[in-house]
């Protein structure tokens, strides 16, 4: 009924009347004018549409786009996963081979080795990023002098392209000229040429964890910071009145209230790192040997180097189901935590 309100009339210093209409009233009037200007038949037709229909009209283009670029390829990949199809042999007959691709993948030691490498990478990066990210967020939230400047500095790695990060860390890790090797050498006394971060089977998995942690901890920090800032001050004030110690406040207020945000950050980083490709590919290419060959690198090799399209489709479906399933379970836990 706001549109029916009469505009308030005031006078300007010269005494002329000035209409001080509210914004919503102007919009309502404009809408009415638009309806009046619309030909009767169309207006009737538009008015005849239900809200649900209008909603469908608005989301239809998005749904169509999603169907075309997400759902259709997914269904096609599922179909291909039951065949021996190879994209590099267009003239060869495509045979249906049932669950053969799935059984080969699940019984393949190399696939499990890739899954282990992925799990090692995902678990350690999440652990380190959450710990360091939350700690940084906690410190930044103290609002010390220059905290805005340091926040910006901390965020820089996250703003870089993974390709750039991969390339320059490759140089940093270089045992003959790399800064990283020299710093470690300076601290430990080990000659830099013996610090083979990308060539050593023991060190290479940690080399990629270090880079990913360096790059994405700021992201976790940002989410945690949002969580910390969302905690109302009066809760802490009440705790102060109750003479709760800082330690007690942290465990009873800060951590539980920031937990949904931390879990959200873990979910995002978990999904992202499960499909990590670019940075690992640039840093180690999966080597030395197959030490850092995470699932996405194996998948790329099967799909675009060996051209086993059917096989790689099955592998992609298995990965999709694994991520989707784990993410769903996680989201349910997250919702339970939020509702507490």
């Amino acid at each position, binding site marked *: 009924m706001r549109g029916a309100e009469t505009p308030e009339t005031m006078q300007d210093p010269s005494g002329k009347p000035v209409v001080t209409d509210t914004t919503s009233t102007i919009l309502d009037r404009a809408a009415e004018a638009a309806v009046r200007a619309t030909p009767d038949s169309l207006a009737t037709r538009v008015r005849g549409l239900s809200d649900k229909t209008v909603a469908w009209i608005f989301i239809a283009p998005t749904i169509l786009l999603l169907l075309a670029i997400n759902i259709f390829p997914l269904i096609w990949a599922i179909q291909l996963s039951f065949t021996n199809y190879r994209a*590099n*042999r267009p003239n060869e007959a495509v045979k249906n081979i049932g669950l053969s691709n799935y059984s080969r993948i699940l019984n393949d030691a190399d696939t499990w080795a890739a899954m282990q490498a992925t799990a090692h990478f995902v678990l350690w990066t999440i652990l380190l990023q959450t710990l360091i990210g939350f700690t940084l967020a906690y410190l930044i939230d103290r609002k010390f002098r220059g905290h805005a400047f340091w926040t910006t500095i901390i965020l820089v790695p996250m703003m870089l392209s993974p390709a750039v990060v991969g390339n320059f860390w490759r140089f940093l890790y270089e*045992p003959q000229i790399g800064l990283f090797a020299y710093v470690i050498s300076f601290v430990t006394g080990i000659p830099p040429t013996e610090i083979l971060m*990308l060539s050593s089977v023991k060190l290479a998995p940690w080399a990629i964890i270090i880079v990913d942690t360096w790059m994405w901890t700021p992201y976790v920090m940002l989410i945690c910071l949002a969580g910390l800032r969302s905690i109302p001050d009066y809760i802490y004030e009440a705790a102060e009145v109750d003479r709760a110690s800082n330690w007690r406040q942290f465990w009873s207020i800060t951590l539980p209230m920031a937990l949904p945000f931390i879990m959200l950050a873990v979910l995002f980083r978990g999904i992202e790192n499960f499909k990590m490709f670019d940075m690992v590919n640039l840093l180690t290419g999966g*080597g*030395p*040997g*197959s030490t850092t060959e995470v699932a996405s690198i194996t998948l790329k090799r099967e799909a675009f180097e060996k051209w086993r399209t059917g096989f790689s489709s099955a592998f992609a479906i298995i990965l999709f189901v694994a991520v989707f399933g784990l993410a769903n379970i996680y989201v349910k836990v997250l919702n339970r935590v939020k509702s507490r």
Partner: protein
Amino acid sequence: MKSTLKVSLGLAAGLAASTAMTGASKAEDLTLCWAAWDPANALVELSKDFTAQTGIGMKFEFVPWTNYADRFLNELNSKGKLCDLIIGDSQWIGGSAENGHYVKLNDFFDKEGIKMSDFVDATVVGYSEWPKNTPNYWSLPAFGDVVGWTYRKDWFAKPEIQAAFKEKYGRDLAVPATFAELKDIAEFFQNREIDGKKVYGASIYTERGSEGVTMGVMDVLYSYGFKYDNPDKPYDMEGFVNSDKSVAGLEFYKSLYDCCTPPGASNSYMGEGIDAFKSGQVALHMNFAFTWPGLQKDESVGGDKVGFFANPAGPDGEKFAQLGGQGISVVSYSDNQDAALQYIKWFATTDVQKKWWSLGGFSCLKAVVEDPTFEASQPYAKTFLDSMAIVKDFWAEPSYASLLQASQKRFHDYVVAGQGTAKEALDGLVADWTEVFKDDGKI
């Protein structure tokens, strides 16, 4: 008035004709696809003559080696029209012939009088024939290449180095005749200080992603007695791929990697090798011959400082080398096949091949490489000829990519990551390759 009209009509006709011709030549512009490397620049220069002679413009699509196979095999598999001509890797020939990517050139060669016997035999088998050793030609040998070695001639010539080497090994420091000698030299130089700088023994192929470690390992294994399969029973690999001799060869390669490469050289291929040699890090350098003109010209390590030698012999005196190089083919999806064939005809002529060599392209035409002046034409020319005489190539089957990826994994796992034994690596390779051939229905 009449003459003015005639002149006007003439001008109009000339203008129309020139416009039409421009349109026609644009329609016939050819796109040639190849790797982005020094020889490609030489080909751009060479192709200007083709455009001048025929009026057909040339465009080039060059992709770095690391993405070369991915990019162009994708293009061919999707029946793309980007490339009219392609200089594809030698191992692509089986797949490209069987999947219809390349135009078969037999009739064209017969019609134009191009004889395959005019080209170096190994390059015809390696780059043009499918099935191998049959007269079915899918490309014209375009760029001969082979793995060989460069060494620091100036370091070898230093009296104090020579004396130290003789004292340690009881022989003169010279170009190695066997792989065992090569390792001695690499060990000798490893961590040695020369001109106030620490240097290393050898740069060898260890790259994991594309084909590097396989090219390096195979280059050594052939001379140790490795065979792909039973000569009397194709695809029967047990006891050939994983023979005792092959195991010894693989163990040798690992020992060379462990003892004598620069720190961190665990993912080294052509580019990294060039960098290691040019920056004065290594005494010996394994690489394809295409790198030699650039190294020869290099200001800091070229000229008299660099020497070249073909693969040394294995324990039984056998000498083989890994074939590189490519042939030039007409893409069957091209709309400009006639013009593309015209380019191949032009490229096959002796004068063009001579100029190709002079610009840095490694010609495969016998008239060029068997010319009496050839050996003296460049410091590396004789090594190139010696190496081309002992080449062997990796599988060129349609499944070469799967076969290559299997060997990349097995070799890198053993040589660089040190996992398992050489015997286990080669046994595993036999199992992987057998599975590939079973999938293909060849076993």
